[in-house]
Every structure is written in C-alpha cells, then in structure tokens.
C-alpha cells in the first residue's frame, strides 16, 4: 500500500509541475472568461450602432416617440413621401418607413413599406414589425370598448409547484420535498455532472493510457516491476492521475467564477452598461424578481449537500477508476502503436456516450425505470446517479448503486491488473482477445 502511494505521489508531482499542466490549468478559465466576455460584447454591440428610422405616418395611429428604444431611434416626419424618399439619407436616417392610411379596424394583415440603401437583417425587420404591431394594438384597444388594464389582465402566468412542499411550509416545517426551483437546480447540476464525467473519463483516462504506453515503450517498466507489483504500479498511476484531475477541476471551479466576475466588473463599464443592461433585461424577462432569487438561494440551501457532495465524489472516482483501469489495460496490451490504442478507446467509451444520451430522458422522469436502471448499471451510473441526487431518489437505490459501483471497481481492477502485468512485459507481438483471456489465468 505504501508503494502505491509512492507511485501515485510521483505521478502526481511530475504531472502537476509540468509547464503544460500549469498553462492548461490557467489558460482554460481565462479562455472560458474570454469566450463569455466576447459573447456578451458582441451580443451587446450587435456589431453595429443604433438605426435611425424616419417614419412617415399617414395612418395617424402611431405614437412615434414611444417606439424608440436602444437600437432603433424613430423620428416622425411630415414631409411628403416622394420628397422623403430622396432626402431621408441627407437627414442622416438609415431607413424610411411609410405607414399608409388606416381605416378599417377589422383588418388583421396590414402592409407597411420601407425604403433603405442598406440591406436589412431579418432581426431589424421583425423588430420594426413588432414595434408597429404594438402601436396598432394599442390604437385598436383605445378605439374599442375594452379597458387596456382589463386586456392586460387576460394573460396569466401559472406556476406549478409541489403541493407537498407548500403543505410542509404551511405547517411551519422545514420543507423536505423538492420544489420546482430544486428541479431546475437538479437539472443544471445533472448536466454539469454528466459533462464533467465525460471530460474526466476521456481526458484523464486517456492520460493514464498514454502514460502506461510510454512506460512500456521506453522500458522504464522493466526496472519498475522488479521493485513493485505491476498491479501496484497500475493502481498508483490511476490514483496519481486522478489526483491531478481533481486538482485541475478544483482550480477551475474557483478560477472560472472569479474570472467571469472579474470580467463583469472590469469591462462592465466599458460596454456602455450594455451587457449589464442585457443581464438586467434577461432577468426581467425571466421574471427574476428579488423574491425569486431569494427562493433559489433557499432551495440551494435546502438541497441535501451533505449527502450530494460525498456521493458525487464517490461516483466521480468510481467512474474514473473503472474507465481508467480499462484504458490502462488497453495501453499495456497494444504494441507500440499510439493510434491503435486511441482507436480502442472509442468503443470502450461507448457506455459513456449512452449514459450521456440517457441523461435527457432521466431528467424528464428522474425516478422512472430508465433512471433506476441507469443509476444501478455501473458503467453508466457515475453519470446517471449523481444527476438524480437532487431529485431525492430512494436511499436504497443510492446505497445499492454505490455497492455495485465499488464491486465493479474491484472487479475491473482485478481484470485490468491481470492484463496489465502480462501486457507491459510483452513486446512486438500482436495480441488478440483470446490471448488476453488466457492472461487472466496466468499464475503470479
């Protein structure tokens, strides 16, 4: 056991102090932040300045001053249309909109014309259409018997909330059942977990495989195995690389939010408040009132983190371990051909893809049959089970899933160890599955 830690320590230290590791660990969040920044920047700037629109309104319906917003500045004009057509450019306007006379209030389709030297984007056209339609609607309502306040009250927002939870709150208890917000949080958490597992399995599992191959190719392994058992070497390597992965993820978990926050404060001002306004608008659109935000925080607090975090880490390591040991076995048994190993990685990773695809269905029905199967089947459970954690799965399922996962880890470690100890000392020989099967039963 002591030797496994020595090996894991070496694997960890030599990787963590490599320049490539440091660069990748620091650059990834910076790149991530840059992406976020550019995304908001372009969205805010839209790549162009506000459009100046001159409106010739023959209908008398429009209240042009009300139409102007950040990206569209509307100015009314009384000049004759034919004259305007030639002069709107000189008046520094980009678009001329002509609204013909309007008498019949029953008309639902109405044609308005525009004149411009520019090519208009679909977005610009629809924005103008919407602004005009709003004006027409208000005008129609004003000229009818309908009270605008009554009209506005027709549209209703429905919130479907867990009655059990509300009952518990009403009874003054700490709510045990999860509400809608918790489901939302669970969904986000599940997606995050699934994505992370996928990343961990292929990036760090691949790292284990390459490192096994390297040791085999440059013959370090010959020197190593006279001091340690091959299976110790393999386990130490898997642990060490897993530690590297955990370190990297932990750094990102801290750095990415910090960088996003930093970019928000540093560049927020330079964007003419644009991006901030956008955030506010988005929040307003999602009806994210103060009380809603408070609810999210209280739901975050009521989620059973004391259970979720340790279980999450167990599945994280279990999933990584199962796949890393498979990849280690592959790395040891292929000959000197890196490409060949890379190719074998894909079929071995298929369960991960399947788990990833199942995630959508599982989130739709977090305690359905598919979800239960997915969270017990050990090649998929590291993706599915953590995703279900926020949905209060039955405790026996969580425990059974962990037991199966650990048993599978031990089984895979045994198989991989058996393949590994023969594979690493075999050179220049193509192996097939029949032969690998025999390796499992070699003595010693």
């Amino acid at each position: 056991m002591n030797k496994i830690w020595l090996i894991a320590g070496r694997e960890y230290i030599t990787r963590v102090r490599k320049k490539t590791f440091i660069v990748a660990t620091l650059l990834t969040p910076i790149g991530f932040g840059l992406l976020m920044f550019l995304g908001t920047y372009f969205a805010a700037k839209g790549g162009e300045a506000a459009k100046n629109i001159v409106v010739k309104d023959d209908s008398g319906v429009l209240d042009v001053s009300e139409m102007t917003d950040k990206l569209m500045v509307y100015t009314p004009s009384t000049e004759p249309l034919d004259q305007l057509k030639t002069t709107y450019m000189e008046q520094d306007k980009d678009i001329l909109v002509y609204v013909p006379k309007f008498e019949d209030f029953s008309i639902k389709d109405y044609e308005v014309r525009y004149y411009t030297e520019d090519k208009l984007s679909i977005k610009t056209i629809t924005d103008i259409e919407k602004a005009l339609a709003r004006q027409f609607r208000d005008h129609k309502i004003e000229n009818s018997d309908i009270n605008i306040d009554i009209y506005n009250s027709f549209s209703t927002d429905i919130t479907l909330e867990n009655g059990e939870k509300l009952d518990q709150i009403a009874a003054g208890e700490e709510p045990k059942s999860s509400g809608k917000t918790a489901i939302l949080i669970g969904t986000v958490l599940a997606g995050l977990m699934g994505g992370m597992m996928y990343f961990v399995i292929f990036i760090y599992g691949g790292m284990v495989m390459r490192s096994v191959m390297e040791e085999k190719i440059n013959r370090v392994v010959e020197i190593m195995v006279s001091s340690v058992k091959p299976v110790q070497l393999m386990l130490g390597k898997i642990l060490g690389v897993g530690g590297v992965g955990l370190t990297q993820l932990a750094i990102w978990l801290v750095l990415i939010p910090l960088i996003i926050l930093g970019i928000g404060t540093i560049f927020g001002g330079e964007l003419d408040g644009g991006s901030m306004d956008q955030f506010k608008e988005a929040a307003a659109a999602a009806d994210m009132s103060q009380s809603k935000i408070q609810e999210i925080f209280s739901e975050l607090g009521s989620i059973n983190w004391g259970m979720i975090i340790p279980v999450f880490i167990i599945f994280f390591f279990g999933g990584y371990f199962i796949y890393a040991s498979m990849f280690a076995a592959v790395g040891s048994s292929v000959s000197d051909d890196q490409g060949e190993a890379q190719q074998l990685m894909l079929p071995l990773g298929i369960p991960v893809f399947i788990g990833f695809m199942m995630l959508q269905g599982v989130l739709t029905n977090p305690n359905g049959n598919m979800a239960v199967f997915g969270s017990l089947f050990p090649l998929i459970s590291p993706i599915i089970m953590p995703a279900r954690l926020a949905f209060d799965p039955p405790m026996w399922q969580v425990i059974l899933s962990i037991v199966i996962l650990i048993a599978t880890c031990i089984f895979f470690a045994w198989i991989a160890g058996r393949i590994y100890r023969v594979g690493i000392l075999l050179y220049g020989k193509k192996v097939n599955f029949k032969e690998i099967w025999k390796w499992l039963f070699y003595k010693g």
Partner: protein
Amino acid sequence: MSVLSIQQVEKQYAGHKAVNNVSFEVPQGSIFGLLGPNGAGKTSLIRIITRITAADRGQVLLNGRDISTTKIREVGYLPEERGLYKKMMVGEHLLYLARLKGLSKQESLESIKYWLDKFDIKGWWSKKIEELSKGMQQKVQFIATVLHNPSLIILDEPFTGLDPVNTNLIKDEIHRLNEAGTSIIFSTHRMEQVEEICKDIVLIEQGQVILTGKVSEVKQQFKDNIFKVTTTSKLDDQGSAYEMAGLDEDGYLVKIQDGYSSNDVLKEIISSGNEIKEYKEVLPSLNDIFIKLVNKA
C-alpha cells in the same frame, strides 16, 4: 552454501514451456554466468527470480528461504531492456527507486550520495534524465540496481552501449561488490566477458539446463586434448603420437592421438631433434563450448 537455489522450476506461456524443469545452484559469493542463446528462457527465469512473475512449478530459494517470503530489497536487477523517466531529475529518480525498494528516505539519500560520489557524478543530482547520454543513463541504472545493498545482483547485458572506460568502471565495481560479499548473476551473450568475470556458469537452451558448473571444470570437461607447442625449428605436420590441429601466433596446436600421452608427444618431438621452448595445454574457450552445445541441441 548457495545464495540462490533453483529447484525444478517450470513456467509455461501460451503453448510453450519457457522454463522447463530447471535446477541449478548459485554459490554464495560467486559471479555466476547465466548463459544461453536468444529465446532460451533466460529472461523468463530472471523474472521468476526477481518475482516479476511466479513459477508454475518448482521452488526458488534465496539465502535458503523461499523467494516469496524474502524482501524485495535483497535482490538488485538491471534488466537488459531498461529505461528511466525522462522528465525526472537523476537525484529524485534514484530516491524514488530506492524508496520503492523499501529504503527509508534517510537511508536512500545516504546511499545515493555514496554512489554519486563513487562515480564522481555529484553534480548530476538535478540533471534531467533526458539530458544524459545513453551511457550516462546506464550509470544511473547501475546505481539504481545496487543502491539498496542487495545480497544478490542480477545484471543482464550490463555493458552494452558503454565505452571502454565506463565498461571498466562498472567491471571494477562488480568485482568490488563481489569481494565485499555480494553474489552476482551475470547474463550475457559476450563469452569473452563471461570468461573474464565469471567463476561459475549455467547454460540454458530451450528452457532447459544443458550445462552447469565452475568455469574451470566446464573447460576440463570439454577439453579436446589440444596442446600448444613452441619449438625452435619447424614441427612435422604429423607424428605418431599427435596430429597438427592448427597454428597459434607463436606456436603449433597439436591434438594428442588416442592412446598416447603428453610424454609420448614430447618424446617424439625431442627425438626428432627439435628443441621445445614451450608446451602447454589449450582449453576450449567458453565461446567454442557454447557454439558446440547450442548447435548440437
């Protein structure tokens, strides 16, 4: 007493017996040659001795105890195919290997310092392995083999890739370790090195022992009754007691005919009026014995 006793050891790999009922003894304090053509089963046998694999049958005793109950640090092994972690520094690499052998950190550091001093490479501690030439790396590998002070050292082709100066350096070190009581198993194809270094040998072919014993006894066993004669004038090609077998730089090689002895040969030459300046037995080289035996098998 034997430092290592191999008893009826067998190891089977997919369809063929790599080691087939092998038994031999490595005497305490000897430099022992483990010989055999490519694919004879030397590496398989060494891997059993170093506990990299286990024998299917038979027993291996180290210092009288079953090898599986002994400590890893009692054996030092320099494999033929050897590498090091390129990105590690010499010092930390040696420390790592020493600790894997079971030495404490303190013991390891003392031993590494001793050996770096000995090979006059104190400054190498913080050099990266990838900065070293192949021969330099080999010195590091040799240190890794001996730094835990094992009672048995197994060296598989330790001189390949070394220049004559470094070859001598390692050779001297082997002798020094041997004088201090360490037993050494030396595996090679280079018969002249075996002859120079080894006191005892075993020859393995197709997984089986075909010859074992002291080098001097083996040579006696395979001697061909050939003698070297140096005379003042030309020697007759054919006498009744001898037959000309070849020429040496400064003499003739004669084979004594069946039923005759050296005295008969000497008498015959002297009676022919020729004067003898030198007369001595020529023993076959290990190389000759090796080729003869392997070809026969």
